[in-house]
């Protein structure tokens, strides 16, 4: 609304001024005739149409053949490049993930292996120790048995000596007491009988 009033004023003002200054400033474009409102002056309609057609046609041709393919090419290259880079980044990430997984697996395997080795060493050491102990025990048992057998032998021989000593002693006593002699056989018989009585 503001536009309409000011425009109307402007046109009035313009006409007043144009009339005042017409002779000195306005070039004789329209001869002496009353000056038409330029946008509605048909003098240059044909010229405007022709030059608009030429210029707009040229502009359209240039845009569709040169400018637009050029800019869209640039934008496409950028889009491709960005998506390519994103793909590459994705690929690298997957690779890194795979490497990480492989590393984890390797680590787990190594840990298992170490565990197994330790277990094995432990078992072996235990088995060796057991064997050693067994051997020592066996040896000790053998020696114990030997010692026991020796003791038994000694006791046996000692016990056997006891009979002889008793016979000798009994013979000597008989000799001293009775003054006679008792045969060795008789004495031994008597000692044995006495031993049997007691035992």
């Amino acid at each position, binding site marked *: 609304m503001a536009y309409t009033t000011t425009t109307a004023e402007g046109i009035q*003002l313009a006409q007043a001024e144009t009339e005042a200054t017409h002779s000195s400033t306005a070039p004789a474009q329209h001869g002496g005739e009353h000056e038409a409102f330029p946008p509605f002056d048909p003098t240059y309609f044909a010229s405007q149409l022709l030059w608009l057609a030429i210029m707009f046609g040229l502009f359209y041709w240039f845009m569709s053949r040169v400018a637009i393919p050029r800019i869209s090419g640039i934008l496409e290259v950028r889009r491709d490049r960005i998506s390519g880079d994103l793909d590459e980044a994705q690929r690298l990430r997957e690779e890194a993930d795979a490497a990480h997984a492989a590393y984890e697996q390797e680590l787990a395997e190594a840990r298992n292996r170490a565990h197994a080795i330790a277990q094995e060493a432990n078992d072996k050491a235990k088995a060796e120790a057991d064997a050693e102990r067994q051997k020592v025990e066996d040896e000790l048992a053998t020696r114990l048995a030997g010692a026991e057998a020796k003791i038994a032998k000694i006791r046996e021989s000692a016990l056997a000596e006891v009979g002889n000593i008793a016979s000798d002693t009994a013979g000597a006593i008989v000799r001293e007491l009775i003054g006679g002699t008792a045969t060795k056989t008789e004495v031994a018989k008597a000692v044995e009988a006495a031993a049997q009585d007691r035992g």
Partner: protein
Amino acid sequence: MATGPIHQFNLYKLIPLDFNGVDLSFTNSSLFMAIIVFGVSGFLVWSTSGRGLVPSRMQSTAELLYEFAAGMLRTSAGPEAMRFFPFVFTLFMFILIANLLGMFPYFLTVTSHLVITATLALLVFFIVIIYGLMHNGLRFFKLFVPSGIPMAVMPLIVIIEIISFFTRPVSHSVRLFANMLAGHITLKVFAGFVISLGTLGAVGVAGAILPLAMTIALTALEFLVAFLQAYVFAILTCIYLNDALHPGH
């Protein structure tokens, strides 16, 4: 102040050309069209000459304009409308730069002439009709028959639709033309007040501050209008092209 606010729209011959009595002279309007076409073309080629993966500031501007127009067309008429992209981009750039160039003092605003805007609007209008008929055949006329309307009011609606369709080029062209014309006249009138009051001595100079402030504010507004009207013209073109592609509402 030598000239009135209408003087800025005057056309004059630079190279007189007469073809069988029809005046086809190369005028200041033709010159400014040439400046727009060669200027924009030159800028687009020069700014993208680096073909940088990371764009320079100028290349960014070119890409921004491209993406802006492409986004506008894609969102309002769908991806299949991209076949019209060269046309829409050309139209948008032509009008945008014509409007912005008109903001320079002593420069002619090409789009402040109804012949120019009417030609462009009719070009859009006929592209819509011809492509609409070629692409959809008789289904194109479904454009005038909105779905989901009771039969009783259908004739009325169809008449309204037909009238609104055929008045499109009028509103399409007059909107741009009138905005550019009125804006520039207003600007010149207020600027003229500054000069007139300034010649009246100390009181006049003090009084000239108000129209000066107004002129500055209007200049800012006109820059906005210059962009906005180019955008409106282009987006309406996109919407009309959408009708040609998808006539069923």
